[in-house]
């Protein structure tokens, strides 16, 4: 059914990457009758292929191409070759994600105005606001089947949630529930209800969790307007003498290179690969990289202020049973600088299996302090902290000319230093997280350092003025009219909330814009 398009067909929209941004955009365009070629570096895996085994699944799905790190963040020390935990597959990281789906708060679109000048932070207001985004959020929630939105019920709480909820209530928190999750609490959209298998990060074998891999992608293909080419790794975006993009060069699974012509190109490779691709597309006309007249491509890399708290009790919890992340405290997400930092954070339940717990509880740790923690694995509960981090110009993706990927292209280096605001917020969140578990009788708590980045944001940011960022309010690059950015790298600032609902809402909105501009002959 998938429409095959000719390499020389220059009427197609080329979408690079098929994750939350690219997968949704491709389907939405196809539904509107636009011809789309989506190029995806990874292969295609469906629920039958997913593996209930942490490391085996990681080996199947993770993006493991060469990357390097620098900066004072702990990930650079603990996981120097793996700055981010991202998927290379049709559907992108929506195969791995946990499904937490939250709207931004109104002030989070306007942080420069709300927070004022924060030293060392490159804050900027988004050129859009919550009121404008609300209808798109609603469409995104309906698409993803987000629980506790529309008339969809919440998920039942698992063991990990019950401990978390009791602790949260003991501390006086009020906004405590099993989350707004893109996981079916009842059958929805031809997909089953959650069976509480507990391997949400490894791809949901029941299809209960939304993933572009088995929703938007096949639906787009069914229209006959979308061709998804898997194992198609884009190396460079080409342009003509007028500065408009004309197509993309990609390598197929045998390493053979092809040039796919295009009328419009949309970049959605997640926030490390998207800016890297623009930088690797430098030319005589654009010596600093495509769409980079502002010098902001690759800068303002954000990863959310994160951390985890695990706690051991004198009785079993068995946190791994059931949903990986269905539980939230939202009371700390507010703006309240009296806590000693701007921005807020969410506390969300999180469970890891024994193999990942051994790798992530205290990377590098050994001896009895470490092993007695794992001895109590069965009695452990856990939560994840996700908060707004400060955009900093010096936190950035650059090309590392000393490290090459499998195609001989410079690998991305990911540089990140924590901002003092990030550090103050993390300290506060650790204290609250540990207090939460202490309140229900924890015998030991662990303030666990951040994992490789699962939320990667901001490296092609949206700005009103061309000099402040890379794309405008539609995700269209300021410099090149027919070049768009369609993933989380558009984020001007990160907000406290998990990003994917906003990525999806922006992609639905962008599809609307591109389709209408195409029909008006403006692109």
């Amino acid at each position, binding site marked *: 059914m998938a429409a095959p398009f000719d390499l020389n067909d220059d009427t197609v929209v080329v979408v690079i990457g098929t994750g939350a941004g690219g997968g949704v955009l491709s389907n939405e365009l196809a539904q509107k009758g636009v011809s789309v070629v989506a190029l995806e570096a990874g292969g295609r895996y469906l629920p039958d292929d997913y593996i209930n*085994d942490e490391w085996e699944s990681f080996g199947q799905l993770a993006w493991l191409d060469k990357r390097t790190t620098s900066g004072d963040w702990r990930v650079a020390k603990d996981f120097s070759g793996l700055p981010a935990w991202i998927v290379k597959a049709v559907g992108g990281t929506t195969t791995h994600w946990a499904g937490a789906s939250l709207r931004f708060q109104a002030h989070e679109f306007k942080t420069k105005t709300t927070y004022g000048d924060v030293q060392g932070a490159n804050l900027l207001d988004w050129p859009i606001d919550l009121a404008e985004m609300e209808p798109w959020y609603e469409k995104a929630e309906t698409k993803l089947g987000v629980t506790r939105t529309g008339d969809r019920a919440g998920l*039942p709480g*698992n063991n990990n949630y019950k*401990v978390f909820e009791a602790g949260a209530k003991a501390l006086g928190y009020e906004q405590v529930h099993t989350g707004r999750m893109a996981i079916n609490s009842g059958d929805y959209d031809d997909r089953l209800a959650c*069976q509480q298998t*507990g391997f949400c990060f490894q791809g949901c074998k029941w299809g209960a969790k939304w993933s572009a891999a088995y929703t938007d992608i096949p639906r787009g293909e069914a229209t006959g307007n979308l061709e998804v080419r898997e194992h198609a790794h884009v190396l460079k975006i080409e342009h003509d003498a007028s500065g408009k993009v004309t197509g993309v060069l990609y390598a197929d699974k045998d390493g053979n290179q092809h040039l796919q012509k295009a009328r419009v190109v949309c970049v959605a490779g997640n926030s490390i690969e998207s800016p890297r691709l623009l930088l690797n597309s430098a030319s005589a006309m654009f010596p600093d990289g495509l769409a980079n007249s502002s010098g902001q491509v690759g800068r303002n890399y954000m990863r959310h202020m994160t951390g985890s708290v695990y706690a051991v009790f004198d009785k079993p919890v*068995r946190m791994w*049973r059931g949903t990986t992340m269905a539980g939230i405290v939202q009371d700390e997400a507010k703006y309240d600088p009296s806590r000693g930092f701007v921005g807020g954070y969410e506390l969300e339940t999180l469970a890891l299996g024994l193999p990942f717990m051994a*790798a992530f509880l205290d990377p590098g740790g050994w001896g009895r302090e470490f092993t007695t923690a794992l001895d109590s*694995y069965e009695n452990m509960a856990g939560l994840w902290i996700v908060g707004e981090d400060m955009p900093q110009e010096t936190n950035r993706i650059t090309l590392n000319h000393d490290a090459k990927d499998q195609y001989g292209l410079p690998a991305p280096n990911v540089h990140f230093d924590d901002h003092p605001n990030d550090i103050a917020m993390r300290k506060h969140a650790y204290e609250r997280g540990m207090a939460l578990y202490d309140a229900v009788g924890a015998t030991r708590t662990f303030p666990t350092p951040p994992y490789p980045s699962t939320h990667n944001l901001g490296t092609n940011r949206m700005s009103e003025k061309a000099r402040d960022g890379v794309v405008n309010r539609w995700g269209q690059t300021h410099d090149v009219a027919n070049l768009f950015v369609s993933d989380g790298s558009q984020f001007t600032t990160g907000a406290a909330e998990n990003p994917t609902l906003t990525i999806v809402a922006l992609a639905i909105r962008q599809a609307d814009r591109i389709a209408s501009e195409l029909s008006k002959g403006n692109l």
Partner: protein
Amino acid sequence: MTKTMERRGMTRRELLTRSAAVTAALMIGPNLVAGVSGAWAMEVSHVSPQTMATLIQMARDIYPHDHVADDYYAVAVKSYDNADQAAMIEEGIASLNSAAQGLGHGSYLDTGWERDRVDILRAMEASPFFQTIRGGLVTSLYNQKAVWPLFGYEGESYSKGGYIDRGFDDINWI
């Protein structure tokens, strides 16, 4: 377990007669390391049995779990018994032994208290040898499916229908 690493059901007596040396829990023969209980034995062909026994002890001292038997640690390090890595292992274990001797012990294995062995390891914590062994154990020990039940971890659940009817919310003390 593989051919070189199986529970052979040898008697303790049989093993003892084949073994040249016995440490607290490990027996060391001309080409094998075995559990004193006789429950398991492992043949080595590239590193010496003495070295492998020391490596097994080192693995336990890095990640000590008193309810996890030696054979799981043996499985976790047995892949180092190969032509490419044997020299690196022999050299690393030799430095461990000389550190032990510097503190007045006969060898690392002869160092009776875990506390003293851990002191030796702490002093070499930054070495590539230590970091290779420690880093490898994170997966070679904890990603052994046979180890999981010892920690209560249940592993794969899809084939059993998930936990929806098997206790995802069965906590009764909170």
